[in-house]
């Protein structure tokens, strides 16, 4: 009994420590006070200010476009790569897997620096000395960051799958492309989806790679692309954190929370349905 109480209180204390700051953030996004930590009564002023602040809106747009595109590209490349590697010979597979581990454990600053050096080199040698820093270099940077994580999310699903499925599809008349499309992809879809979510969030809050690989473009036009993280960084360099950002971060947190919750509810419901079906068939 005592043991149980301790075990539960341990979990709740940890959860509290984890979520307390976010709770503060949410509470203080509903007040007008500019100084942090003071409460001047409930108000939705920050939220209305947020949508009027053009800089923030541009940065938000940039961030979302970038996050969507880079998540899409890295999910496609990472998933196809994982499928390809899975059906490779063992020696080659081990090599690829080890190579894939390096960017995961590597310091992000190293990735960012090396990308910058490469883009400068490419600009000088292949693009007539012009700078190639733009939205495309930024997208490439974010993909480089996310692809290893997509691979790591898809791989366990492939390992769970019966390796003979691909051959079974071919045996029944599917061409290799059709077999992947009709049989393999549906099997690893949960892995692909979590890879997509992960690469989306990686891109959403990335600062280092963004700062090193961005150029002009997107909603920022001819100026350097600002994402939320670079915007916050440039603003706090000058002064205090603008109060609207409290509202913005609250919104981001709630959106992510909703996505994660609905995904896990969906998975749970599906599992229960299968279990129920199974029980019914056993009874029958």
């Amino acid at each position, binding site marked *: 009994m005592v043991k149980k109480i301790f075990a539960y209180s341990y979990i709740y204390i940890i959860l509290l420590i984890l979520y307390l700051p976010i709770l503060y953030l949410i509470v203080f996004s509903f007040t007008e006070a500019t100084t942090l930590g003071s409460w001047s009564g409930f108000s939705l002023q920050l939220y209305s200010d947020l949508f009027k602040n053009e800089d923030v809106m541009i940065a938000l747009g940039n961030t979302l476009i970038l996050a969507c595109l880079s998540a899409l590209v890295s999910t496609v490349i990472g998933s196809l790569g994982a499928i390809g590697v899975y059906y490779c010979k063992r020696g080659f597979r081990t090599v690829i897997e080890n190579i894939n581990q390096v960017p995961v454990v590597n310091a992000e600053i190293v990735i960012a620096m090396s990308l910058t050096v490469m883009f400068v080199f490419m600009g000088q040698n292949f693009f007539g000395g012009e700078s190639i820093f733009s939205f495309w270099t930024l997208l490439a940077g974010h993909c480089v960051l996310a692809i290893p994580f997509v691979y790591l999310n898809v791989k366990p699903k492939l390992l769970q799958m*019966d390796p*003979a*499925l691909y*051959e*079974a*599809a*071919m*045996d*029944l*008349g*599917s*061409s*290799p492309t*059709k*077999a992947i499309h*009709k*049989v393999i992809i*549906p*099997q690893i879809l949960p892995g692909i989806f979590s890879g997509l979510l992960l690469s989306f969030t990686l891109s959403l809050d990335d600062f280092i790679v963004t700062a090193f690989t961005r150029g002009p473009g997107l909603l920022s036009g001819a100026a350097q692309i600002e994402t939320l993280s670079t915007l916050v960084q440039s603003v706090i360099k000058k002064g205090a954190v603008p109060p609207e950002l409290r509202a913005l971060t609250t919104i981001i947190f709630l959106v992510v929370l909703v996505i994660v919750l609905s995904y896990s509810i969906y998975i749970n419901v599906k599992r229960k349905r*299968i279990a129920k*079906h*199974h029980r*019914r*068939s056993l009874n029958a």
Partner: protein
Amino acid sequence: MCAEKIGENYIIEMNNVTKIFDGVTVIDKMNLKIKKGEFVTILGPSGCGKSTTLRMIAGFETPDSGDILLNGSNITAIPPYRRPINTVFQHYALFPNLDVYDNVAFGLRNKKIAVPLKNKDGSPMLKIDKGLAKDLKNQIKRLKKDKIISSEEKENRLNYLYQKLDECLSTPRQAYKYKHLSEEEIDEKVVKALSIVDLDELEDRDISTLSGGQQQRVAIARAIICEPLILLLDEPLGALDLKMRKDMQIELKEMHKKIGITFIYVTHDQEEALTMSDTIIVMNDGVIQQIGSPENIYNEPQNAFVADFIGSSNIYNATVIGDKKVRFLNHVFNCVDFFPINERVDVIVRPEDVHLSDVPKENYLEGKIASKVFKGIHYQYSIMIGHDEVLAQSIKDFDQNKPLYIEIRPDGIHLMKKENISNVYTDSYIGKDHKVYIDECPIDCDLSKMINNSTVDEDGIVTYDNKKYDFANADCVATISPKDIQVSDDTSDAPIKGRVINSVYKGDHYLILVRTENDEDFFVMTPYTFNADDIVGLNFDKSKIELKLKGDLNDYEI
């Protein structure tokens, strides 16, 4: 596909098919013909190449050399999805994302029906057959990579293929348009296939909710629905419990009769093979040991491996000592097989052919019961006749402490030609240190064996007829009898280590085949039992290794 009709009733022919994985020959120059409509079983221990054979017929593996013909047309270079062959996989490989109905319909939804194209005036439309040209090109590509056939044969066959390709590219043939089946047609066939396997009411069920036996049936329905010419089954009953397996065996056999297509069934279970097959192909180590009907394989095994693998049996070394007279168990028996006098043979006696009596009779040998096991319908006895062990069966309960008398009648004795079981290493050599290298392992041998009546000094210099010979770097052939090699579990100080491939019991000893990492085979006689895949060490009786020089003796004179 090329239409090289042979006009015979063989649906599958494999000609000199060789498959090599990472330098290991898994299938060695296999020749095989399978008749249309038969239930054929490929039987062998695990790792004998039976699954690889099946996968080559299905198209998942491409042979490194040789051809596979389907109804006389070469299909070696055709991918699996274009072969009219379907497979029931070992673990069924059902698609978990689809329900029973969609799993069964999967093949039909991929299937396309050829409709001949016509010109506006109603005459058949002719076009160059690009698909055929592509197949021929693939065949040419494959043939060019083949390193096993002679260059002359390669040249001839390449020329033939180029000729066919030219012919194909210059003569237009009837063109076809390909149409998917309609949903109504698919539905009709799915319902029929599900009723063949007795699953009518489960069509909308998820795969994960089915029992093993039901999944098995779905896998069969899915494979037969496309009306393949051949159904391949890769140990499909392995995951079922004994009772279910027995039922499925009978059902599969009935299904085979009902749908009338060729079944090729792979298993390591000899009983399954004997129950179901029209023809059994026994394989070991990438080589076909025997092809025949179940009766034929059981009663007339061609060698000790087949005899040992199919059913339990007594196998002895024996000598033919007269016209249809053979000596083993220290006794002369009459037999029905004819072999030349003085020939060493293997003798096989099935336990049910050993007649037992508890009182001495004429022609009966006396023995002692070493063990007695009750097997339900009968007792199984192990009887010692001198040093040899004889397995026998009887429904009678004999007293274990009294002598037992056995008789083996002529028709119960089957003689087999002895396999060449001496170990000959043609690529051994003598190193600078004057040691003999067998399988890259130095062995301190008596070099005077190189020349009769010669002597050898401490430095390894051989003297004969007042001439001295230095055999450093000489190539030689080393021969050693299986009884002069000792095998043990202790690999620490053994010069050669290897893996046990198989083991055959021969009355008072085992003959085991040990394969080293470098793919050299050693036959070894031992009184102890070893299991397949055990790692063992081999020690040689050095004085018993026979050596023969390759090349001219005079080259080594000093």
